[in-house]
């Protein structure tokens, strides 16, 4: 026996599978099982990219104006009832991924383990690892119920590797009758335009936090980011305060980043934030409180007023 059949739910954003999804595909492939991918929406558009990373078959759920989560979960359940049950389903820790796994968990009566960074299969036994307390403790958890095992993974847990495979075969799957659970309907889709490098792919990230003092001062972060060809980021505190959009948020509930250089400006280093950036190769922190936890992980820490340090730094870089 063992883990022979794995499903990967691939999150699509801006018309392409997210890197987190390709990571899971790579990992699933390395576990030596038959790997099928599920996507919400147009399968043909992503069949090439998914095939390149080793997928041979893509189940594309045409969910119409339904919310993707409940639609994909219902389609998966119908497939399982039809005799196609997988041993393991892997999800990226994304919006749709979380909805699909939660709905599916109840439909198949299985638990779901989230926030994982590693998975090991030993025969029938599958163990996943989750960092807790800001990443200083690792908890390994083994599934004890029956299959399918449901597990979700944080971005940047694995390295995506192309196998230069041909485009995957697309199987269009219709959504079963959702009954009352399908009552929510999408009436409009808004895509937020972003310029410059993407936060979770940038080589350098410059983030601002509450220490900026006011919304207008975020301009300093944007100026510095532009000079360094970096992506601007933010702590949850200033996203909650409405200074910058949610898409800027670095942390447990935002993006996980692992750039070469992370510059934290006016960020004290709450656990929620550190989880999202402590994997950066080099960390520079500027904060006026010398007790700030961020200094505990910074390679270069500046205890000082960012309103004095940043303008000088920007001026120095402009002069180069």
């Amino acid at each position, binding site marked *: 026996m063992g883990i022979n059949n794995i499903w990967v739910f691939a999150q699509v954003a801006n018309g392409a599978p997210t890197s987190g999804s390709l990571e899971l595909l790579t990992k699933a492939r390395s576990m030596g099982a038959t790997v099928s991918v599920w996507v919400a929406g147009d399968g043909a558009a992503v069949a090439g990219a998914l095939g390149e990373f080793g997928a041979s078959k893509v189940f594309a759920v045409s969910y119409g104006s339904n919310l993707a989560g409940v639609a994909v979960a219902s389609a998966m359940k119908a497939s399982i009832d039809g005799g196609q049950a997988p041993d393991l389903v892997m999800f990226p820790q994304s919006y749709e991924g979380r909805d699909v796994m939660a709905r599916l968990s109840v439909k198949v009566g299985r638990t779901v383990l989230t926030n994982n960074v590693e998975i090991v299969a030993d025969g029938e036994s599958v163990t996943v690892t989750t960092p807790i307390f800001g990443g200083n*403790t690792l908890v390994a958890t083994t599934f004890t119920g029956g299959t399918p095992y449901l597990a979700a993974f944080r971005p940047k847990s694995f390295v995506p590797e192309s196998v230069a495979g041909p485009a995957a075969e697309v199987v269009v799957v219709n959504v079963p009758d959702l009954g009352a659970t399908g009552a929510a309907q999408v009436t409009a*889709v808004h895509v937020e335009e972003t310029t410059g490098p993407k936060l979770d792919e940038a080589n350098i990230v410059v983030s601002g936090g509450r220490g900026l003092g006011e919304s207008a001062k975020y301009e300093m972060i944007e100026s510095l980011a532009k000079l360094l060809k970096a992506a601007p980021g933010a702590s949850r505190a200033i996203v909650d305060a409405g200074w910058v959009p949610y898409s800027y948020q670095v942390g447990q509930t935002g993006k996980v980043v692992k750039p070469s250089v992370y510059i934290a400006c006016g960020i004290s280093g709450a656990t929620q934030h550190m989880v999202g950036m402590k994997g950066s190769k080099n960390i520079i922190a500027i904060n006026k409180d010398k007790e700030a936890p961020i200094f505990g992980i910074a390679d270069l820490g500046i205890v000082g007023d960012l309103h004095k340090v940043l303008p000088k730094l920007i001026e120095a870089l402009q002069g180069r």
Partner: protein
Amino acid sequence: MGCAKWVLVRKNRDMNVIVCVKQIPDPANPGALDASSNTLKREGKLILDESDSYGVEMALQLVATAGGGEVNLVSMAPNSETSGLRTALAMGAAKAVLVSDPALLGSDALTTAKILAAAVTRLGGADLIIAATESSDGYTGTVPEQMAEVLGLPSVTFAKKVSVEGGILKVDRQTEDGYDEVTCPLPALISVTAGVVEPRYPSFKGIMAAKAKPVDEVTAADLGVTLVGWAGAGQKVSSVTQAEARAAGEVIEDDGEAFAKIVTFLEGLKVI
């Protein structure tokens, strides 16, 4: 038109909202695992998870807009803990169902969802159920959507803007590349992101009134949910280890020239 009349009637009807609230150890204190059970230590005084204060505020505003109705709470916590519930009651919620039962120790997210769904049913259901997107201590992040499935309800997760017009819920839902506008008839369940509204501070009057508000304490068996705790969990902790710590580097006080240190550091990394 009949339709217009129906809308008018719906506008004036009461709106009953149930908010799922979690009582958690103060995040200001470092967390710890209980060595024997490998569960998060929760024996001290617990507080209202800040993430849930947004849902409580949202519920109070929606009920006020509807012109009538109640905000009620459901919570699952050890040791008959009510400190966090009292905060939400002081903000304006009317009453609560608290599920407190030693048998629940070790429950997984699926069991938690079944318990909270049963607590919602005990309150007679609601027009709208609100939860945070994830708790600040366990952050599994699936319980709201699991509850919706258990209750057979539609759900809109990651709501960043919410209104109810004529009995129809309108939500801006966060997505990977922006947001979707979603409409949904009631009853329904939503999970709200932090910052969706500005939570009020409980007034002195509210705090005093909260002490007398009813908290209906029940066990899992009272709710008819069996196989809970470790017995019902589809998981077991196999090991707990310490991660390799990241060492601190050089920390300097800004003397007016610290910017130059940053420039030198960046040069050393060959990124400028």
